[in-house]
């Protein structure tokens, strides 16, 4: 359906970005030192613990990591949708020059769904079962563009057509349970793009779908991005999706960013032992390997994270005296080569 040649398009955009890269005003989103904690009965869970993140205009940034590493909480924090017992404790989320964390709730509602939209993992449960699809799309248009019911529905049909739903004038009357998961995700995307947002946060948008549908949804997102120029923050645990969609990648582990680089560098020369492990664990089609590398151990308990480097208990990179430092001191996120940031003591000069 989407016939854009991805590689070519991506190459062109990356080049374009490189020229304007130093321009401060070109930053769409700048997350600084974000800390989101959950205050549970058993103690404080530091789900996001000092995350820094930048998304430039028109750029697609991937956030990758295992489940439970804080990817989703980061995205919900940006939308300020973290519910009790979670709380954003520290940090700044600067979106187009304003710190979202300082905005009154009323102004925040004018940003959500309008300038920043979100697409979630489970499309079928994300749509309200008692309202028609048309109503749910028209509602966004009604609150942000004051479109009346009739105009809203008309626009909803256009949006459904845009996201590739067949017979949109019929489908608009359907209830969520009457459509498939893939179609529901298209509806979610239509709803997210209804107000032409500047930033789209997609939280595992394809994880819950069949493999063939996954590819279609990714094609659609790429296609729409190229048409609208929206910045995308794509959260996934699937490095394949990252490779296909993103220009820059942020790797998260246990609530922290451990590595950040452009997609080519990251795949060609991953520096952090965790990233190396992640990339080593991808099966490569057509290539016979003795065994897939697996990262031993499990994600640490965020209730009681290791005192030093959070990856230390699972790290196989170095042994001996160097290791002692990892156990007690958390490494900072450092720019070890231009635009390549790593949180690891190995790369300390």
């Amino acid at each position: 359906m989407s016939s854009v040649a991805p590689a070519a398009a991506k190459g062109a955009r990356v080049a374009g970005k490189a020229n304007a890269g130093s321009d401060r005003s070109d930053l769409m989103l700048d997350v600084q030192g974000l800390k989101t904690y959950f205050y549970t009965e058993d103690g404080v869970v530091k789900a996001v613990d000092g995350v820094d993140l930048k998304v430039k205009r028109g750029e697609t940034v991937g956030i990758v990591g295992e489940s439970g590493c804080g990817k989703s909480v980061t995205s919900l924090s940006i939308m300020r949708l973290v519910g009790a017992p979670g709380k954003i404790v520290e940090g700044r989320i600067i979106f187009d020059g304003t710190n979202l964390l300082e905005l009154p709730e009323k102004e925040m509602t004018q940003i959500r769904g309008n300038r920043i939209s979100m697409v979630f993992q489970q499309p079928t449960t994300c749509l309200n079962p008692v309202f028609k699809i048309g109503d749910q799309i028209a509602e966004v248009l009604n609150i942000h563009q004051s479109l009346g019911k009739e105009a809203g529905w008309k626009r909803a049909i256009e949006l459904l057509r845009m996201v590739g739903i067949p017979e949109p004038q019929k489908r608009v009357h359907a209830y969520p349970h009457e459509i498939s998961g893939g179609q529901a995700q298209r509806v979610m995307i239509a709803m997210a793009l209804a107000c032409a947002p500047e930033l789209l946060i997609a939280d595992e948008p394809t994880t819950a779908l069949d493999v063939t549908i996954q590819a279609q949804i990714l094609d659609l997102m790429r296609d729409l991005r190229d048409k609208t120029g929206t910045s995308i923050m794509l959260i996934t645990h699937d490095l394949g999706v990252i490779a296909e969609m993103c220009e820059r990648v942020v790797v998260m582990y246990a609530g922290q960013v451990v590595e950040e680089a452009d997609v080519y560098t990251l795949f060609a020369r991953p520096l952090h032992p965790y990233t190396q492990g992640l990339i080593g664990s991808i099966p490569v089609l057509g290539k016979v390997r003795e065994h897939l590398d697996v990262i031993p151990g499990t994600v640490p308990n965020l209730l009681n994270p290791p005192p030093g480097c959070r990856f230390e208990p699972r790290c196989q990179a170095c042994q001996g005296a160097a290791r002692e430092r990892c156990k007690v001191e958390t490494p900072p996120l450092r720019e070890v080569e231009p635009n390549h940031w790593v949180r690891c003591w190995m790369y300390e000069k």
Partner: protein
Amino acid sequence: MLNYLIRRFVVIVIMAFIISFASFVLLYSAPGGPLEQLASLQSTTRRPDPDEVERIMKRYDLDLDIGVRFLRWLIGHPRGAIMINGQEIAQNFQVGCLKPGKAQLVYPDGRVEEINCAKPVYLRDLDGRPVSNGVIALDFGRSQQLARERPVSQLINTRLGPTLLLMGVSTFLAIAIAIPIGVYSAVRQYSRFDYFFTTLAFFGSGMPTLFTGVMGILIFALIFKDLGLPYLPAGLATSNRDVVIPLFGQIESGSVADRIWHLILPVGVLTFFSLAGWTRFIRSSMLEVLRQDYVRTARAKGLIERVVIMKHALRNALIPFVTLLAGVLPTLFGGAIITESVFSWPGIGKLFINSLTASDYPVAIAYLLISTFLTLVGFLVSDVLYTIVDPRIRMS
């Protein structure tokens, strides 16, 4: 849809038939009917007069077989020999026995048969015997004890108004108060407000209306009156004469003010009791919905919290609420038996308990039958409502 309704309705009729037969057998084989009352009246002075006994047995069909009695009660037939083309058929069919004992039956052809009945009753004997039009014509027969010979339906009619008023007002109030409290408690879970009202709800549902009713009378009717404060009546639905209430003025007997004045206490007691259940239901159903992904979507769309709660969440939280409405229908008719008793409220629940203690079984059965029917209809209504409020459910 229509098919479904018809099928369900047939089930309802069958269920109602089974229950009515079971309760008929149960109650008419129970002790304490008119005959026993006669016996207890007469035993002190003389032995029961056999003529009087026979008269009462005939009057209340006590001499007939249970099946025949049930038929006469249900459809008002048989009323005598069956006529087909002007010919009487089965007029000699035995349908009951007026006096137990041994007797010999001599047939015209000289055959003699020993039967276990001193005075058999035949179908032809039913000619001219008083009979109701049958339950299916909504004729529940006549009262035997509470109001001698008055039709049961008339008795129920006079009691229906007060019960509908009491139950209608208290149910409406309970729901109207419970929805905002339940919603707010859920939205502010574990807050002071939530804690206060969940505890209060616990007290409400934990205290029997028996107790709250009696305490209400004690405090608001007796103590308040003694203290010279504006007090409430201790019972009944209207005053017999005009009353002057301190600091308030005169209340005319039978006026609207008088009715409201009498409603306050029983409505308060019932509302406090049922409020608890409704609040907890709404709260937990709302908590469940607030956890759902689509509520997060609604927030992510940029809706303000009030719309998220009142439109997206509440609309879903009220879906299971519909099942509870099924239970409301029979109670609107049946009343609150205990509360009506405590407050001597002239309603149907009080009528029912009176009929039981007085062994006035036609009244009790009528009550039971209508309650059962309404309970079943309530389920049907809630099923239909379900398909209206929840698009995911289709009847099949």
